[in-house]
């Protein structure tokens, strides 16, 4: 279980005017700014939950992850992860957690992944038989058996990420922190990684905390999401409830045979989002009006295709980021 109360982290950095003069000035007189990367954060995550931390760049998601894993020291508040204070970095704590950093490799580049795995077997004191069993299971699931003896620097990004995941799961952590695990991967690799995480979590009941810029990751994996904006928690609840912040709405997509230069009458009410060639438009239509709007469009416009789907989480996110007052 993860529990934090009033958790905060401040960073101090100095301000420098541009140019040589600014550099000279800042050499003698330096003005410091203190920025709260995370402020007064309260959160409780139960064992076995899969929670997505959402937010734009600089929102404080990664700072939270760094505090949860004991990499950095909180400036304020209390934090316990599975009964441990992370920053004390007890061996018992380190054996319970694992961290995957999409933007930083934890494997040694100049040697094959297998060598790293054998080192981790010693570090985590995994009995060799268990290690072998898990290694075989994970490498089969991730389809990387033939890559275990290849130098890590020779692997593709997707293959490397699979190895990173394996490295983190060999000791069967109780809680898995995934910081942008699919960043930079192509769509197929993203889906493979996602499917693997979902299946693994279902089977092992591991607590998973995920940050990702790909809403598809969060949508596919997390039942609960926590929205972080400006270092503060702005939403904590189910993914269904999150979509419902904007009201019960659906996306209506209309495709036309030729470019439509002006919005057809009434479209402006539904936040129309046109493609570049203005042949396709997405409308956000409240569920009670769905029937009448659909009939109206089908009867009055020369369209090629018409479809309806639930509001994608990306759309909810971007609308909330543009209008944070909707969260109050």
């Amino acid at each position, binding site marked *: 279980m993860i529990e934090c109360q009033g958790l905060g982290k401040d960073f101090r950095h100095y301000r420098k005017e541009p140019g040589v003069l600014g550099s000279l000035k800042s050499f003698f007189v330096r003005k410091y700014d203190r920025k709260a990367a995370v402020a007064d954060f309260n959160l409780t995550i139960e064992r076995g939950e899969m929670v997505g931390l959402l937010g734009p760049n600089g929102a404080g998601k990664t700072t939270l992850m760094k505090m949860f894993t004991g990499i950095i020291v909180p400036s304020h508040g209390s934090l316990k992860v599975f009964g441990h204070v992370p920053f004390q970095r007890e061996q018992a704590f380190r054996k319970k957690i694992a961290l995957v950093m999409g933007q930083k490799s934890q494997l040694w580049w100049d040697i094959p992944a297998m060598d790293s795995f054998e*080192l981790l077997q010693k570090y985590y004191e995994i009995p060799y038989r268990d290690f072998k069993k898990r290694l075989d299971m994970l490498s089969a699931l991730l389809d990387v058996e033939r890559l275990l003896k290849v130098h890590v620097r020779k692997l593709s990004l997707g293959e490397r990420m699979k190895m990173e995941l394996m490295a983190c799961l060999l000791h069967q952590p109780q809680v898995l922190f995934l910081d942008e695990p699919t960043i930079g991967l192509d769509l197929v690799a993203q889906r493979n990684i996602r499917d693997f995480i979902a299946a693994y979590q279902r089977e092992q009941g591991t607590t998973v905390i995920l940050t990702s810029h790909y809403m598809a990751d969060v949508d596919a994996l997390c039942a609960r999401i926590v929205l972080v904006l400006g270092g503060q928690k702005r939403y904590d609840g189910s993914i269904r409830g999150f979509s419902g912040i904007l009201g019960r709405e659906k996306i209506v997509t209309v495709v036309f045979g030729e470019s439509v230069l002006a919005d057809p009458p009434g479209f402006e009410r539904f936040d129309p989002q046109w493609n570049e060639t203005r042949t396709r438009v997405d409308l956000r239509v409240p569920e009670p009006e769905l029937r009448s709007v659909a009939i109206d469009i089908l009867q009055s416009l020369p369209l090629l295709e018409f479809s309806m789907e639930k509001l994608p989480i990306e759309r909810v996110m971007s609308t909330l980021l543009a209008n944070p007052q909707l969260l109050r």
Partner: protein
Amino acid sequence: MPELSKWMATVRISWSKHLAYKLNFVLLVIGPTLVFFFVKFSLWKAIFSLEGVTTLQGYDLRRMLNYQAWTLLVGLLAQGYNSMNLAEDIRLGRISAYLVYPFGFWPFQTASFLAFQGLQLLVSAVTLLLLVVGGLLSGWSWPALLEGFVFSLLVGFFWYQISFLIGLAAFWLEETWVLRVMFVTIAQFLSGAMMPLEVFPVWLESILQWSPFPYLTYVPAKMFMGEYSGSFAVAALILGLWLAVVSLGVNWVWRRGLRLYTAAGM
């Protein structure tokens, strides 16, 4: 036992990293001898070929080259490892992974250092052989070799700890290479790596004997030559005390520094 196997596994992986690039390794083995012949041998030959120069504080060319050859071996055994990467790792946030693994960062670095020392033994043996064949190491004996070797290993650990301490300054400083260059330059000068300490005034020599510097090169070189007039135990005690001071410093700075660590770039 599990702790020991973590250390051994780290040593093994460190060897794998060093042996990953064949050419690099070959250069590592023969590089020091080549550099010695190109730089020190030529330099001292040129100095002693100057008109009127036959001895320098009792050192003729042969003895000076003998001294310089032993300083090369001390350097290989004691000062080969540097923690230059440590500062960069801290600055770029690359130590994060080691803060999560259940094996400390200092043990990881130290095990890597020990692995490196293992390889340096091989490099030193090859260099020793080449220098003996080249006729530069005259009059050596097994007891002197053993004494110099043991002391050099102690110096190696001191050098490692001081490099680690300087690397940790990266928690506060953007660049630590200035500190490192300053330390290495001062150490080169005061340790006798450039020239034997007999060329210094007596008063400076007597002050220096309480500092760690003479023990970094001059003392082990003289031990190898069988010419060290002081006591091995006293020399080891003085350097051991300095090692304890530096180790306490490492511990204190690491704890303080980690509170400032931001894990940039993660």
